[in-house]
């Protein structure tokens, strides 16, 4: 059930939507709603990062809330800003897949939701960060990332956090942005926002909703086709085919670092289990004639799929991080789609849905 949202309209002046939204975020910081605001900024031309701002002027000057590029999935660094139950509140402007990753991290007890004010923002897709850097400032012709082309969640989930959502899908020709306050929002925060004098309006919200539905429908076809192609690409199936697809893996673990929901503080692959004695390696090599080193790369990817696919938000950062350009997104997205539908789990939807591995039903999954 979608909770009723209080929909407000933020007027946009001549300076444009980015400045209007930056001004709104700076205002929230100025009025003490948050102690700091995390948001995307450009460090040097063409390179984006996230800034944890304390100075509202820095936000007004530097914020790039609509830049179609994603340096990291900020769900995980934002979680880390509040992992130690701080006092005070951190605000963060996050894309839908970042919000969803953060929900998973909250459920994994790696972020304290009480110390967050999440401002979700619609996202119609991002482009490859390296292409963006090369093409900057003329970036409008760039193709969306593979993950974004098939993304079915262009809007942040309403049920994820008692926060604020910024809507702009379907409102391109309006001089306005939609500001939706969720019902559970801290009344103190809501009061401050309401005092900014935005008018209440349902018609923009309706237009946005139907534009999102249309976009999802379009993407749904692309999504299905993408999965079919990826399966076909695997060409014959069998363990050999998957080993072939992952053959270039050097074991750098960049995909794990980039993954916002690969949640272990210390990965088993960095531990003693994989710190083999020479004799163990020799014994294995003896059995197979030889072993690849660095080894266990196939085991690593398959294990990661088992550990994190239920929480996979399909952001595709694993693929962006791969120095060998392995098509990780399609493999992980396909697997995640299967495991999530098996246990009827939608990652990032709500903090109320229990993580599937922490719970069970007595009458399920039979025969084993």
């Amino acid at each position: 059930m979608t909770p009723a949202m209080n929909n407000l309209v933020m007027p946009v002046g001549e300076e444009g939507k980015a400045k209007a939204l930056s001004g709104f975020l700076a205002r929230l910081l100025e009025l003490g709603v948050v102690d700091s605001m995390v948001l995307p900024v450009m460090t040097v031309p063409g390179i984006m990062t996230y800034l944890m701002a304390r100075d509202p002027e820095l936000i007004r000057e530097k914020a790039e809330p609509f830049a179609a590029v994603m340096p990291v999935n900020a769900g995980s660094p934002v979680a880390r800003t509040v992992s130690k139950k701080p006092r005070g509140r951190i605000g963060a402007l996050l894309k839908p897949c970042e919000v969803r990753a953060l929900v998973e991290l909250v459920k994994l007890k790696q972020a304290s939701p009480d110390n967050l004010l999440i401002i979700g923002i619609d996202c119609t897709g991002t482009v490859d960060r390296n292409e963006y850097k090369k093409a900057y400032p003329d970036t409008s012709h760039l193709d969306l990332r593979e993950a974004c082309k098939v993304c079915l969640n262009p809007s942040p989930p309403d049920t994820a956090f008692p926060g604020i959502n910024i809507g702009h899908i379907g409102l391109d020709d309006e001089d306005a942005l939609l500001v939706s306050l969720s019902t559970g929002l801290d009344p103190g925060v809501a009061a401050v926002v309401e005092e900014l004098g935005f008018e209440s309006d349902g018609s923009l919200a309706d237009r946005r909703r139907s534009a999102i539905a249309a976009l999802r429908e379009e993407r749904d076809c692309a999504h299905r086709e993408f999965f079919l192609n990826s399966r076909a690409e695997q060409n014959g199936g069998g363990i050999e085919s998957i080993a072939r697809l992952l053959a270039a893996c050097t074991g750098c673990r960049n995909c794990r670092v980039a993954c916002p929901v690969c949640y272990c503080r210390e990965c088993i692959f960095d531990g003693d289990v994989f710190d083999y004695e020479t004799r163990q390696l020799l014994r294995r090599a003896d059995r197979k004639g030889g072993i690849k080193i660095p080894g266990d790369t196939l085991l690593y990817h398959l294990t990661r799929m088992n550990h994190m696919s239920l929480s996979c938000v399909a952001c595709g950062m694993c693929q962006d991080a791969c120095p060998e350009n392995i098509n990780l997104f399609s493999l992980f997205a396909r697997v995640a789609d299967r495991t999530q539908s098996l246990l009827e789990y939608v990652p990032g939807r709500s903090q109320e849905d229990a993580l599937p591995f922490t719970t069970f039903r007595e009458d399920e999954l039979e025969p084993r």
Partner: protein
Amino acid sequence: MESSVGFEPKIVAFLCNWCTYTGADLAGVSRIQYPSNVRPIRVMCSGSVDPMYILKALLDGADGVLIGGCHGGDCHYVNGNYKARRRIAVLREVLDELGIGSERVWFRFISASEGALFADTVKEMVDSLKSLGPNPTKAMWIT
């Protein structure tokens, strides 16, 4: 694929201390004959078997992996077997989606008093693995 004639599958079995391992022990003390293809590893609970260990066995050339836990409601740790069931179901989805196939992974609830069931399960699994043939990972070194 290698012919299954003369092929003796190797099964790595993760058996729960409280039920299936004791069941296997009962099969032994009852002198029930069953194939010697199984290499048991005693674990405290089927819920403690991370899919990583199952995958490791499969990628290192084990022909099958058997996980044995207590029957529903009997888990010594209240619900580890139910959690194992979820984990293994997810493992199956991963293996099936990637075309690796999950038929080499067996998860069975076998209690401490079911020595005969343990022996029958091993027999059944050996037959099934013989018809599947050797695990192709035996000869693969790029795992």
